[in-house]
């Protein structure tokens, strides 16, 4: 016999672990990881990847779980006031704004990709990719992005799908932790693993000459796992590994703290964090490496896949995979395609739901909104904020959101929270906050790692992102600097982004009036999207200020 407790809480421990794992497992596990591995040393990539997981990923997981539980036991469920409860310096609650801002901004564009996966499941099930050609599949994706009629025969179906996806997220969130988020994780995670195992098996056992394949699936595995140990001396490979660990675990977002804030003081977090973290690694390394690349190489060959990976993982997933599955025959192709996009959808949904909970918790705690109001307000904000990324996807607004909210903000927030935890809150209190009620004792060495190594690692990643050199070749760039030739920034360096280096270059080489006008319009949109993100950040700061004053009055 069970009954519900009065306050909001998780239903079961397994539900909490699955929700945390679902938060971490995202589209990147299946699309980003294999491409990163291929581009950064193949099998050798797993070495820096593991080291970064041990020195940065696992410590950050424990720090964020402990921070969340500490704040939650003081009645806070979002990072501004969770961080505020750890120190007397009120500035930290404004650092905590990152933990709400990042989620709103990332959810805005993430729900758009999620809506692609949802549309592609439906398209696959309705047989739209049966007897198709690579050109048709690629053209259909272009039409979809350009809002031309493709699937329903109506224009703007991408916007329609985006709206459905946002409504779905808000509806699940409005159901609460147990009946919404946890139930979605309990359904989504097992389905995702089941689909992943089935597709991995199909990928590995793919035989040349069968189902239209020209190579065995093991050729792709060989390509992905063959180690190039010389890559280990390249700092860019290590930065890529650190970046992958960072993004796959969803650290630096504020979602882990929010989920952990519903855990009581005497309940375990050390084992739960390990279970959720390693479950994510299983999905990423064991399943993620055995689907996309083996299947794509089996049909397209290594050279073509290498060319496609240069254009990004999304293209490979949505422009290529539907055609490859169609080669498996009508029924099997539909089943495999629906499973592939279905697993991407579940991975996306469990992550986007996690992005909604900090905002919901913030409004419930500080402005006494009920869960339904808070959840639907999340949906409204995500819709409004996401619409520019949908409408101006081709003009780079989507990438701009991803860069500032989904990349820079995460690293910055993780760096600041690790400093707060280890150096301001203090490592002695921090160590107790991690180990209280733990089912496993964290090895003592992590006290040193959390205090020194993790913040140093994060600082290195941040500085490297700030100053990344052209061609990502650090040795050559440092040599040129010492020779007095100055420093050329990569277009992806934060400094170069702020100076609009890439778009200014494109304007300079633009051919003709129309192309130049297009580039100038793109520049305006990019600057506009940055302003929009700044306004959102400022707006949340204002809400935190008002909430702080309300607290003082109370």
């Amino acid at each position: 016999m069970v009954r519900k407790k009065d306050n909001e809480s998780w239903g079961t421990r397994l539900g909490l672990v699955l929700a945390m794992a679902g938060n971490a497992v995202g589209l990147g596990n299946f699309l980003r990881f294999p491409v990163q591995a291929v581009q950064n040393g193949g099998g050798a990539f797993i070495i820096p990847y593991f080291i970064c997981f041990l020195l940065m990923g696992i410590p950050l997981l424990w720090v964020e779980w402990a921070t969340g539980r500490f704040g939650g036991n003081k009645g806070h469920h979002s990072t501004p006031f969770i961080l505020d409860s750890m120190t007397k310096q009120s500035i930290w609650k404004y650092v905590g704004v990152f933990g709400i801002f990042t989620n709103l901004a990332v959810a805005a564009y993430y729900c758009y990709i999620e809506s692609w996966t949802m549309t592609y499941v439906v398209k696959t099930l309705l047989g739209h990719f049966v007897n198709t050609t690579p050109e048709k599949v690629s053209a259909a994706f272009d039409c979809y992005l350009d809002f031309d009629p493709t699937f329903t025969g109506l224009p703007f179906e991408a916007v329609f799908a985006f709206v459905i996806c946002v409504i779905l997220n808000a509806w699940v969130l409005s159901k609460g932790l147990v009946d919404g988020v946890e139930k979605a994780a309990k359904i989504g995670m097992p389905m995702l693993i089941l689909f992943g195992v089935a597709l991995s098996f199909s990928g590995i056992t793919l035989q040349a000459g069968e189902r239209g394949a020209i190579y065995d699936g093991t050729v792709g595995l060989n390509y992905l796992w063959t180690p190039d140990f010389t890559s280990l001396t390249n700092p860019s490979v290590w930065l890529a590994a650190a970046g992958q660990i960072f993004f796959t675990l969803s650290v630096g977002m504020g979602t882990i703290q929010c989920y952990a804030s519903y855990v009581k003081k005497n309940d375990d977090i050390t084992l739960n964090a390990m279970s959720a973290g390693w479950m994510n690694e299983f999905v990423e390394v064991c399943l993620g490496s055995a689907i996309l690349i083996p299947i794509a190489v089996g049909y397209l060959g290594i050279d073509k896949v290498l060319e496609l990976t240069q254009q990004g993982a999304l293209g490979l997933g949505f422009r290529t995979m539907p055609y490859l599955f169609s080669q498996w025959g009508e029924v099997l192709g539909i089943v495999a395609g629906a499973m592939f996009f279905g697993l991407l959808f579940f991975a996306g949904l469990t992550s986007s739901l996690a992005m909604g909970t900090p905002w919901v918790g913030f409004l419930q705690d500080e402005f006494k909104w009920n869960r339904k109001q808070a959840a639907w307000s999340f949906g409204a904000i995500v819709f409004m904020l996401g619409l520019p990324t949908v409408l101006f996807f081709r003009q780079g607004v989507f990438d701009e959101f991803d860069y500032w909210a989904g990349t820079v903000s995460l690293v910055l927030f993780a760096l600041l929270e690790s400093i707060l935890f280890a150096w301001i809150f203090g490592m002695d209190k921090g160590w107790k906050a991690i180990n209280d009620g733990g089912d496993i004792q964290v090895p003592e060495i992590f006290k040193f790692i959390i205090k020194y190594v993790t913040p140093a690692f994060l600082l290195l990643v941040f500085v490297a992102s700030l100053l990344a050199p052209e061609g990502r070749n650090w040795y050559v760039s440092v040599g040129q600097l010492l020779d007095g030739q100055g420093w050329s920034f990569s277009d992806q360096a934060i400094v170069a982004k702020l100076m609009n280096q890439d778009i200014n270059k494109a304007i300079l080489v633009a051919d003709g009036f129309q192309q130049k006008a297009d580039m100038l319009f793109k520049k305006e949109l990019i600057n506009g999207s940055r302003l929009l993100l700044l306004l959102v950040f400022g707006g949340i700061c204002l809400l935190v200020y008002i909430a702080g004053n309300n607290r003082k009055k109370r």
Partner: protein
Amino acid sequence: MNASALWMMISANVVIASLAVYFLWRVLRAKKRPEPDSFSENVED
């Protein structure tokens, strides 16, 4: 597959899958805490 690729793949997969299963098993086997705990669905009437 060449030997080095095979070794890298098998060792990474075995280590990760084993640890993922081990920690999940520990979670499933862990004793329930005395009330009040963090979970609503194990409150006995």
